[in-house]
């Protein structure tokens, strides 16, 4: 490598440096993907760039403030609309309260475990990274606000995703459209349970491994089934948008549209983690006599 004149050259040449940095970054990537060992370095860098992330969000925040000053005429309409909405919601809420009480009584009668109420934290989407390899969003609440990895993020329409990485003041949500993300769901109409997985594309989800003759229709609503112990049951996830069943394949190709979307609104809710699921029953080989007792607890 005779590109740099002797005069300026200090230390190793460009090729040596390239090899060094390439090896270093390959090592970092391997450690990050395979072993997840580097939280400290990431945390440090995250703190370094945090002011920039906040600053980058400033124009939007200012825009919100300023446009808030100019919409006083719309405000009257909006208040009227919200009042109406509030009334409608209130009506539904009354029914919900009654149902909840009834549900609790029935559950008491059945000696079933109580459904946990979840608390929520409001957060705002700071920005969406331009990364074609994953679907993520950055939220403005982090471990300082008590956010933990694994918490579920929803908006007003349904599930948005799951917190996968937490920094002191920020957190990363992996959206349900991410290729490596799946949500256990249940069809509202037929009660069929399945998993809905992201495709890596915006606005499409996939129900994999459902038999071609499964009871499923266009427009079916999928809600979380709650059997995973992470997603609380009953949150809307997606609508079935296309079903292709081909006799050549054992499974139907079912495409869904997510109910929520990060492109729609910036405010989201982070649900508090659910109480830990009951312990998995012991393997039957080890604990035959206890089987019956444990089985009762496990079923909800």
């Amino acid at each position, binding site marked *: *490598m005779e590109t*740099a004149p002797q005069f300026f050259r200090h230390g190793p040449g460009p090729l040596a440096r390239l090899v060094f*940095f*390439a090896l270093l970054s390959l090592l970092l*990537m391997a450690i990050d993907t395979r072993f997840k060992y580097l939280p400290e370095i990431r945390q440090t860098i*995250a703190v370094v760039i945090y002011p920039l992330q906040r600053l*980058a969000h400033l124009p939007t925040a200012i825009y919100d403030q300023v446009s808030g000053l100019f919409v006083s005429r719309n405000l009257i309409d909006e208040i009227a609309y919200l009042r109406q909405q509030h009334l409608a919601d209130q009506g539904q809420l009354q029914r919900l309260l009654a149902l909840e009480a009834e549900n609790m009584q029935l559950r008491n009668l059945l000696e079933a475990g109580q459904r946990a109420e979840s608390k929520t934290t409001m957060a705002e989407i700071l920005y969406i990274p331009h*990364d074609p390899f994953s679907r993520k969003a950055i939220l403005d609440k982090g471990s300082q606000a008590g956010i933990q990895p694994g918490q579920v993020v929803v908006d007003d329409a349904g599930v948005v995703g799951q917190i996968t990485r937490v920094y002191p003041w920020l957190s*990363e949500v992996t959206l349900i459209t991410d290729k490596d993300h799946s949500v256990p769901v249940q069809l509202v109409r037929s009660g069929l349970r399945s998993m809905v997985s992201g495709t890596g594309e915006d606005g499409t989800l996939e129900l994999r491994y459902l038999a071609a003759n499964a009871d499923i229709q266009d427009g079916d609503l999928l809600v979380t089934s709650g059997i995973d112990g992470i997603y609380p049951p009953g949150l809307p996830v997606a609508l079935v948008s296309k079903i292709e069943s081909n006799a050549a394949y054992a499974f139907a190709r079912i495409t869904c549209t997510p109910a929520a979307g990060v492109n729609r609104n910036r405010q989201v809710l982070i649900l508090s983690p659910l109480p830990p699921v009951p312990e998995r029953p012991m393997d039957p080989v080890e604990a035959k006599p206890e089987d019956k007792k444990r089985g009762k607890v496990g079923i909800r």
Partner: protein
Amino acid sequence: MAFVNSSQQEVLSHVRSRFIVLSLTTALLLNLLPLQGVALLLRPDFVALVVLYWSINQPQRAGMSMAFTMGLLMDVGDASIFGQHALAYSVMAFVALLLHRRLRIFSLRKQVPQVGLLLLSAQLVMLLTGLLASANLPGWDFFLASVSGALLWPLLPALVKIPQRRKPDSDAL
């Protein structure tokens, strides 16, 4: 490492290394802007552009270590695999260091296609590492960022030199 190539240079160009840092910070800021949809697709990688600018115009001081560091910052900012941007920027800076003399012969406008190729090389490295980590293949529009970046190139020297013309404001960033 690259910033402190020689103590003599350091003294002579103390202000300029501040400009380098300032321009890189601004680029990082621009990369973190909350954009959506088409704007996000078309947004050039400002950090890659500025890294490229300095590795072509100040190859003695802004080298691969700067590219690598900026890559790590972008990795955290973009929530990608740790080291992905770092590798891409290092490779790009390496090619830029090899070609910087040849590149500087051309006028800014004639540099556009070559810069486009350099940016594309960084994106290709990103693509390869992304695929290795079992990610899905992004659409062709992934490469639009290189095109828009290259088109922005002729404006870049003027933009980077803005703070150098004025009295540097100690409060700026």
